[in-house]
């Protein structure tokens, strides 16, 4: 029901990995933000966010007089840890080099984390009580694929490096909004369907 139920080990490992990569990015960002590594940090932070809805004691907790929506809302606040690391890292990069698209990166991070939590909520709804591992793996592999292959359409780059930041920001803002709605919809208790 509270943040005590969150698998903090998983969230902390992903957040620590993301923080370590971000520190390296800030240290070597004199000529511009190393966006490839910045995205690697985001993948680690996304993995951390994917674990916040893991509920190993779901069978017991489901019987408690607390709706799944309230539990999800309480657990979702744990995603603030990886997001806070992302915000601090991006702001530090912005301080280090003026070439950093701070706003776009912040929206991108929020969008990616929201998608991770939404994916976990959908799997949780489907009956998987610990969706973190599969969401982290699938989303992480997909992000790596996009990062390496940069698939079309080029007009809406998912992870831009040169131009296309406005389109990317619109994409991630839309995905974030859709993900929040999905989290709410997927967190309804079965008897309320």
């Amino acid at each position: 029901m509270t943040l005590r139920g969150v698998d903090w080990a998983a969230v902390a490992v992903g957040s620590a990995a993301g923080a370590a990569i971000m520190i390296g990015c800030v240290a070597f960002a004199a000529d511009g933000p190393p966006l490839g590594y910045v995205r690697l940090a985001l993948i680690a932070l996304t993995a951390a966010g994917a674990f916040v809805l893991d509920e190993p004691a779901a069978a017991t907790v489901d019987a408690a007089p607390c709706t799944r929506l309230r539990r999800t809302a309480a657990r979702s606040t744990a995603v603030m840890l990886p997001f806070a690391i992302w915000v601090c890292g991006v702001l530090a990069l912005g301080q280090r080099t003026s070439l950093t698209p701070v706003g776009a990166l912040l929206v991108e991070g929020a969008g990616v984390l929201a998608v991770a939590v939404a994916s976990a909520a959908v799997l949780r709804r489907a009956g998987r009580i610990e969706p973190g591992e599969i969401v982290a793996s699938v989303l992480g592999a997909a992000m790596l694929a996009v990062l390496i292959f940069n698939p079309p359409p080029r007009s809406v780059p998912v992870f831009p490096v040169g131009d296309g930041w406005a389109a990317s920001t619109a994409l991630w803002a839309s995905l974030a909004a859709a993900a929040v709605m999905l989290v709410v919809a997927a967190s309804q208790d079965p008897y309320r369907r």
Partner: protein
Amino acid sequence: MTTLADGAAPPTRMATLRPIAGLEARRYARHPLFLIGVAFLVIGSFTGGTAATGAPANPEQQVATILPAFFLGLLGVFVGHQLARSMAASTEAVEASPADGVIRTGALCLACLVPGAVALGWTACMSLVMALKAVPVSAAISSPDRGAMIAASVVYAVGGPLFGVLVGRWTRFPGAALVAALVLVAWTFLGTFGLLMPASRLGTLIHLNAPFTSWVSSDGPNAPLWLAGGSPWWYLSYIAALCGLAATAAMFHEAVGARRSRLSRVLAVLGVLAVASLLLAAAPDPTRLTL
């Protein structure tokens, strides 16, 4: 009077290993992530313009290795990790069987040859298509060197899953597979710093220490392509030694007694071999040849 009849001789390790390796290979071949990787490899081959469009040397060199490296190797990290973890869950149940942890880990490592076989078949198909379509290749790359560059894709396809097995045997924390994949990608990105440096043996060493490398690069989007320095054959030996290190280190986790000390010696030999291969790979003339 009770007589003890001579029982059947205990099965040799090889005899035990073979059926388990076959079982693990079938598990690997049926894993959804492996099948997805193979599907994307095929799709990427048709849409990536490697052979179908008659592309010049650069796409041939880069895409021909990155597709199997990613879809079989990097995704294989997740497959190898999951198979290793699922094996750990059944440890108590199979303790009575003649196969100990080392043999079962060894069998899982042998199962990692499945993506290697797919990469080998894919490489043969691509080479055949490119030969039939008479894709132009640069004279700056000799045929043996080109062979070593392309053969590396098979080692990439085997190395990723082996690394996943290693991580699966030694770690317990959730998300370890993704962290392992990130480590490989970050290591590869670090290697590209060698391409940004002026041509030197140190730059070649930094470039080639990564578990995946691209031999063709340029100084800008419209700048001419050049071939990075270094020996593709010694690099192939280096990444093969890394694969051996991963497999041995995975088996080392369960080994005890004499077998543990034997594996320690194997690890030491493979470590020396890897370092020597890397140094020899970076030893040739670092001059970059324009393609």
